[in-house]
């Protein structure tokens, strides 16, 4: 079968007519998508793997980021000879709905040619997944060998398996949860309030004059970044060490409010560099979508119902130092999958790096994913 190869490759965009009916009742039409593909789709279209990205990530999973020039965010997992082997698999990563790297979001133009800003409808994880399914229909990909993702990407993985079980042969959910906890919501609310408290936010209408709420967004990122690391990792990397200053190699307390401690300097850097690549309103919308996520709630309050009768093979991975989506959340998912009779594997891997472990070359993660994918290929 011949397919349109211009659909595939790096930095693709397409506008589909829609309509996409959202959980909140609004309808999006048309719908913009930005995505990347890696590797070649095989003749029977059976080697496609959908990679779902996390809150502030994007479709540049294994290629340089157009704004920062940094390498793709999951080069440890995706590439020739990697578990998601671009010599053998066809990998797709789609910028999520509500984001700011080319897919429809608050910075996109509405009917009046002005940015939606806060007129953009509030979206859910399920909306993101339905949008992805719409794009896959357009690309002619019916069935996925696997859907994989960490953090919010893992939420999409679970939602994919629940919404489209017949399209998902296997699902790999890493460092994630089937719902957002009160603590998860609380941290996100701190971030949102920081953005909204920035005088430049102006109800979200900041696109015209190029003065976005960078200070608020930076604070939001700083607060969130703490949740991605472990206390052990922070202590090891920074401890109470002071930031070096000219003439003071080991640093000194300023008896003021400069970034005296290395951890302060690091967090400020994380905040400042984030605002160059991310839109504050997108941060509001995507964190909202994550807070609304409760897969059990969508299935009569019983998580096992989300996977009833599923034929999908599941792989669930957690990290022992991840306190944002701890192993107990992964076990809740595994318990529900067991109760529904699903074929499930679960492993808690050891890493000192907290939630961020899923983005790093964490020992055991690649071997686990590689073995799981190959088993599905009968290897």
């Amino acid at each position, binding site marked *: 079968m011949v397919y349109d190869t211009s659909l595939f490759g790096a930095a693709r965009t397409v506008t589909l007519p829609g309509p996409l009916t959202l959980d909140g009742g609004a309808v999006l039409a048309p719908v913009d998508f930005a995505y990347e593909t890696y590797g070649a789709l095989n003749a029977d279209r059976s080697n496609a793997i959908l990679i779902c990205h996390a809150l502030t990530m994007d479709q540049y999973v294994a290629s340089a980021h157009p704004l920062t020039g940094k390498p793709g965010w999951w080069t440890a997992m995706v590439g020739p000879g990697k578990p998601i082997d671009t010599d053998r698999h066809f990998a797709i990563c789609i910028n999520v709905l509500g984001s700011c790297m080319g897919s429809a979001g608050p910075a996109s133009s509405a009917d009046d040619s002005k940015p939606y800003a806060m007129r953009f409808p509030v979206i859910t994880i399920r909306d993101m997944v339905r949008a992805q399914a719409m794009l896959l229909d357009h690309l002619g990909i019916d069935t996925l060998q696997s859907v994989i993702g960490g953090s919010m990407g893992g939420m999409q993985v679970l939602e994919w398996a629940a919404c489209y079980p017949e399209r998902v042969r296997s699902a790999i959910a890493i460092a994630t949860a089937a719902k957002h906890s009160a603590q998860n919501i609380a941290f996100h609310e701190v971030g949102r309030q920081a953005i909204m408290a920035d005088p430049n936010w102006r109800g979200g209408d900041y696109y015209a004059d190029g003065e976005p709420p960078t200070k608020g967004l930076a604070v939001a990122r700083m607060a969130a970044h703490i949740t991605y690391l472990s206390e052990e990792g922070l202590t090891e990397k920074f401890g109470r060490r002071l930031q070096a200053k000219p003439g003071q190699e080991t640093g000194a307390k300023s008896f003021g409010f400069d970034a005296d401690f290395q951890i302060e300097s690091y967090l400020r850097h994380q905040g400042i560099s984030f605002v160059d690549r991310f839109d504050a309103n997108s941060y509001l919308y995507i964190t909202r979508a994550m807070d609304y996520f409760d897969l059990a709630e969508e299935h009569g309050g019983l998580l096992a119902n989300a996977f009833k009768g599923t034929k999908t093979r599941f*792989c669930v991975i957690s990290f022992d130092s991840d306190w944002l989506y701890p192993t107990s959340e992964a076990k809740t998912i595994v318990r529900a999958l067991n109760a529904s009779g699903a*074929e499930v594997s679960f492993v808690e891997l050891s890493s000192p790096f907290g939630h961020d472990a899923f983005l790093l070359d964490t020992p*055991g993660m690649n071997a686990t994913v590689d073995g799981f994918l190959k088993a599905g290929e009968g290897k």
Partner: protein
Amino acid sequence: MNQLRPDLAIIADHVPAGARVLDIGCGDGGLMAAIRDAKGADARGLELDADNVAQAMAKGLSVVQGDADTDLADYPDDAFDYAILSQTLQTTRAPDAILAELLRIAPRAFVSFPNFAYWRVRASLMFGGRMPVTGALPLSWYATENIHHVTIDDFRALVGEQGLAVERAWYLSGNTQRGAGAANLLAEQAVFLLGR
């Protein structure tokens, strides 16, 4: 394929084709792979050690990292045809509760364990006055994971107390099977097939 441990070989021989099996304490998945390949069994595993889980997953097996003492409750009634607990009963905190769980999850269960009434074990205690170190009990008292030593007669008594049925039993000395005669004295380890 690596040769299976003798107790596992007995279990593998007696799992019917196509059975749904939960192997509790499945290690690196050797038995699961064997019954999957030879019997077309739908085998799932539960294993405490993360490295073992990763190795089993690399074999394409479905294994959940977890603890037999706490995580069997996650499985629904009759989720499997057979539960397997090999050389693990004596390492658990509550062997009696686990036995009940096995026969809740599945109508039949294979259980294998080292027999603490084996004559060499008895001799070691009787004449040496020391905790035994034998082929089936290779580690010293301070290093062993075996916290609830059990004899064949103890096991039969517990099975009886729980109202369960012994459908079959196999006895091993070294790597060879032996008869049921004086098994509590002469068998180094035992494999039981239990029913409700």
